[in-house]
């Protein structure tokens, strides 16, 4: 869940804040629709246009043979993408698993806002609380799974 694949096309020098943007895009991709809807008024409180209206399509999911070998196609997953541009020219992107157009538009708006002067505000108001909620869900899931950890004993067979 935490591994970040290496960037393969653009160099870090060109776009210095990949890591920060990757982080908030990741948090937004794990967000629930209702969590972003709670911020809808603030997110839409700007002049913006849809460069690419929310659109539903697919991503072909690739696995690796034996988990670490050559890639193969497992199947597709539904994805919704959206691109918005704020009045000052900043563009926000979103690619979200599933088919929720409103969710994708709000995530794209968030990405645009997060690249502007109010970045610190959006991080503390939107991204950090979302990340904390995600951590809590993860912690709870892990605790429940840990409760099912089992120790098997191998019985020694007697001679008689």
């Amino acid at each position: 869940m935490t591994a970040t694949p290496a960037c393969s096309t653009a160099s870090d020098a060109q776009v210095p804040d990949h890591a920060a943007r990757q982080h908030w895009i990741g948090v937004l991709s794990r967000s629930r629709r209702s969590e972003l809807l709670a911020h809808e008024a603030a997110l839409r409180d700007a002049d913006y246009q849809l460069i690419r209206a929310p659109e539903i399509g697919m991503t072909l999911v690739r696995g690796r043979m034996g988990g670490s070998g050559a890639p193969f196609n497992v199947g597709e997953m539904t994805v919704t993408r959206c691109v918005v541009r704020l009045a000052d020219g900043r563009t926000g992107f979103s690619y979200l698993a599933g088919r929720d157009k409103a969710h994708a538009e709000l995530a794209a708006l968030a990405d645009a806002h997060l690249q502007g002067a109010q970045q610190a505000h959006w991080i503390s108001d939107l991204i950090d609380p979302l990340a904390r909620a995600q951590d809590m869900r993860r912690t709870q899931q892990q605790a429940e799974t840990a409760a099912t950890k089992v120790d098997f004993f191998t019985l020694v067979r007697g001679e008689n």
Partner: protein
Amino acid sequence: MYVAVKGGEQAIDNAHKLLAKQRRGDTSVAELGVEQIRQQLPLAVARVMTEGSLYDAELAALAIKQSAGDLVEAIFLLRAYRTTLTRFSASLPIDTSAMQLNRRLSATFKDVPGGQLLGPTFDYTHRLLDFTLLAEGEFPGPEAQADAAVQDCPRVLGLLAKEGLIKEEQDTGAPVADITREPLEYPASRAERLQALARGDEGFLLALGYSTQRGYGRNHPFAGEIRVGEVEVWIEPEELGFPISIGAIELTECEMVNQFVGSATELPQFTRGYGLAFGHAERKAMGMALVDRSLRAGEYSEEIVSPAQQEEFVLAHCDNVEAAGFVSHLKLPHYVDFQAELELIRKLRKPSKEPAQ
């Protein structure tokens, strides 16, 4: 030969209305919601997503409702919907080592690092009908310690590979063949086989895997590791130029450790079979891993004598949408075809008019 027929529109229309009425059942009973199916029948949803080859739990649940619980019909519905969508991109290969685990087992090592995590499982239940489910109950979940964490769970086969006891998987960087764009040709690559098996019918793969255990192409499998959990999917959109996560999907992975092979030049090493499926789909992943290994017979110079080892037999028949389609077409009117057969058999049975000379 099938010759088209015309007419019957009214009867067909009424048949579909009757189906809808029967599917709804007694209207004094609450209607089943798609969200109920998604949440309360997750294993059916997983099967439909895997074999429908589209990860979308809501659509799979809708297909199950529409098909009145006929999962092969639901898989067909999802496959058909899939063809209406544009493919934006292919993902970066997912990293199942970084899975957020719900369940993790190894049948090869008792004390595997990270431990054995049973997760939600039917294993070790007594398969007795639970009559308490006839009533509404509350299910509070396990007694968990809030701060209990899952430890790191390194790949079990990785431990064997470190010792050189099993071959490391190799990624040559070759382009990934896609059987949904280029039709399968035989012999197929392992990537093509795995894609076909991932879409393949669970029952068919289970039976073929079972047949190898019973001696039809035996390859002595152990469940080296089974993992169930969530994995993030990453893509690299051209317009961004760097990879991003688009969300997490639930996956089931099975790695089989199989009988070893050696040669004059190589020390004996265990061999591998791999299975991967959407959602919690253990039986599917295990069947797939068994059949992946049996189809590698040629690679290991094993004698190909059993159905599970025969690539064309397995790959050409594992798709239940294709199989159901061809079997189902027998229900369509074959009147003209059958008339010809009737005529022929009558001719053959007619006593010859001229007396034998």
